[in-house]
């Protein structure tokens, strides 16, 4: 029995070690690796219509090169998705989508599980410690929305109330007073003494209000999310104007095992071209009805 146990333990250890050492020889940098592979794995959060959501009618093509735990372009849709597919095309590779939870993306240390994040991520210094950011590919404002019969019309009236945000977002930072954006992008200070209720995504906040929960009076999110919530007929109203501007960019993990400088340069040049030739503006009008790709003055 002892011998059997030892042998089995040895086999398990050996398998783990071999798995660790296995794999094809690495390319000289991530860009070359992506081109050799013929796929770029993009993380995006399919919780948000119209940015990024599942195409439930889409079928995975049989000839796809995407890894089995990623989704193909046929299974996803939205503004971020179209932008990612276009970037893939211009790199000459197939785009695949990984769908890790948002806090895993912003935390960095992706362990090479996906190559880039294209998921409406706001550029901010704290994230820039673990991630490289490209130039912004579009812009929107953060806004506050409350239940329409809450009788609240200004930010000041929110002091002492509870507000909902998605966890690990800039909205959470803003409410906590630790938002580290350039000062010219911050347009309003958060109300005093608010209780912050962090949920998994902004969509939980909106739905909680819609079904009649009263744990918080409102939520902080992107203007695009509020627009989508209003379009859905949710009983909410936006109060005041934008509270800060968000510049959304593509991110790359600083701890990637291959050098990423060439990929970053290539992405910057592709995004700049997509701004110049109107591709991004066209996607924006298609999904949001307005052009969100012009830098705010």
């Amino acid at each position, binding site marked *: 029995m002892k011998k059997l146990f030892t042998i089995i333990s040895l086999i398990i250890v050996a398998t783990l070690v071999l798995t660790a050492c296995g794999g094809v020889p690495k390319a000289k940098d991530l860009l070359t690796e992506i081109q050799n592979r013929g796929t770029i794995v993009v993380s995006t959060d399919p919780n948000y*219509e119209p940015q990024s959501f599942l195409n439930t009618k889409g079928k995975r093509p049989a000839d796809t090169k995407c890894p*089995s735990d990623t989704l193909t372009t046929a299974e996803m849709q939205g503004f971020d998705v179209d932008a990612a597919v276009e970037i893939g095309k211009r790199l000459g590779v197939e785009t695949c989508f990984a769908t890790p939870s948002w806090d895993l993306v912003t935390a960095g240390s992706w362990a090479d599980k996906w190559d880039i994040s294209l998921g409406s991520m706001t550029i901010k210094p704290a994230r820039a410690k673990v991630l490289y950011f490209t130039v912004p590919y579009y812009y929107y404002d953060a806004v506050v929305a409350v239940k329409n019969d809450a009788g609240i019309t200004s930010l000041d009236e929110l002091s002492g109330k509870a507000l909902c945000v998605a966890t690990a977002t800039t909205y959470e930072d803003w409410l906590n007073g630790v938002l580290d954006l350039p000062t010219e992008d911050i347009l309003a200070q958060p109300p005093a003494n608010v209780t912050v209720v962090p949920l998994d995504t902004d969509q939980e906040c909106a739905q909680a209000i819609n079904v009649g929960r009263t744990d918080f009076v409102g939520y902080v999110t992107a203007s695009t999310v509020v627009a989508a919530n209003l379009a*859905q007929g949710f009983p909410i109203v936006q109060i005041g104007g934008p509270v800060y501007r968000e510049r959304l960019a593509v991110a790359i993990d600083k701890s990637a095992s291959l050098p990423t400088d060439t990929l970053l340069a290539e992405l910057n040049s592709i995004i700049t071209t997509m701004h110049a030739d109107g591709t991004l503006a066209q996607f924006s009008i298609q999904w949001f009805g307005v052009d969100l790709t012009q830098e705010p003055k």
Partner: protein
Amino acid sequence: MSPKTPNTSGSKSQADLIYEAQMRVKSRFAIGVAISWIVMLMLLVFLFSSTNIALGSFTLKTIHLDKAFIQENIAFIASGVEVTIGISALSILLATFLALLAALGRLSKFPPIYAISTFYVSLIRGTPLYLQIFFFFLALPQVGIILPGLWAGVLALGLNYGAYMSEIFRAALSSVGKGQREAALAIGMTPGQTMRRIVIPQALRFAIPPTSNEFIAMLKDSALVSATGFVHELMWRATKVGRAQFHNLEALIVAAVFYWIMTLVFSYFQNLLETRMSRGER
């Protein structure tokens, strides 16, 4: 009075009558249970029918579900069923293997092996499954082991259930009488042979019904694997379409129905298995 004759036709013997009466009680009970189930099921469906009934000044409200959303997305959510069953099946295989090792280790007289086994069971049972799933997803890449999301999930579920199931296996192994072992040793079997030929076959009869019970529990715990976002099983599909289209409740209820149906099907097989295993009983 006619003389006593063997009862070949016509009137029934007293034994037959008693037997039939017992059967009637049994089938009446079964019918009663079935009717009650149907009534409760109808009540449950009514609860989600979105009808509002006015009773004087009081209105009885039921829960509203968007039927168009359900029709639109049911096929997409349902395609997660096979992934859920796949993860659970792979995990239960790994768990069975680990549980057997841990149970045997627990019976070992060699201190390090006994210690490995108890340490493993204690560590795994002492931490939440949800945490373990993230651990394998986040920690293993640091030592260069990058498992696809599915395998990280299977590893976490397998290790977790292995620890719990080792207790089942240990109980099953020790349920085989000491006399059986002694007899096997007395006729010259080695300890290994005794285990393989005498103890394990008898222990399995006790271990299989609770193991299938664990499998049914795992079908539902596999939902936790969706948390990392890389395994597109039932729960993942339900939360993603639900969130993006603002119909979390509908999506989760669709998932709940599928989980329940899976459980019903597997419980049925478990019953068949248990009946079969108990045939050896005397």
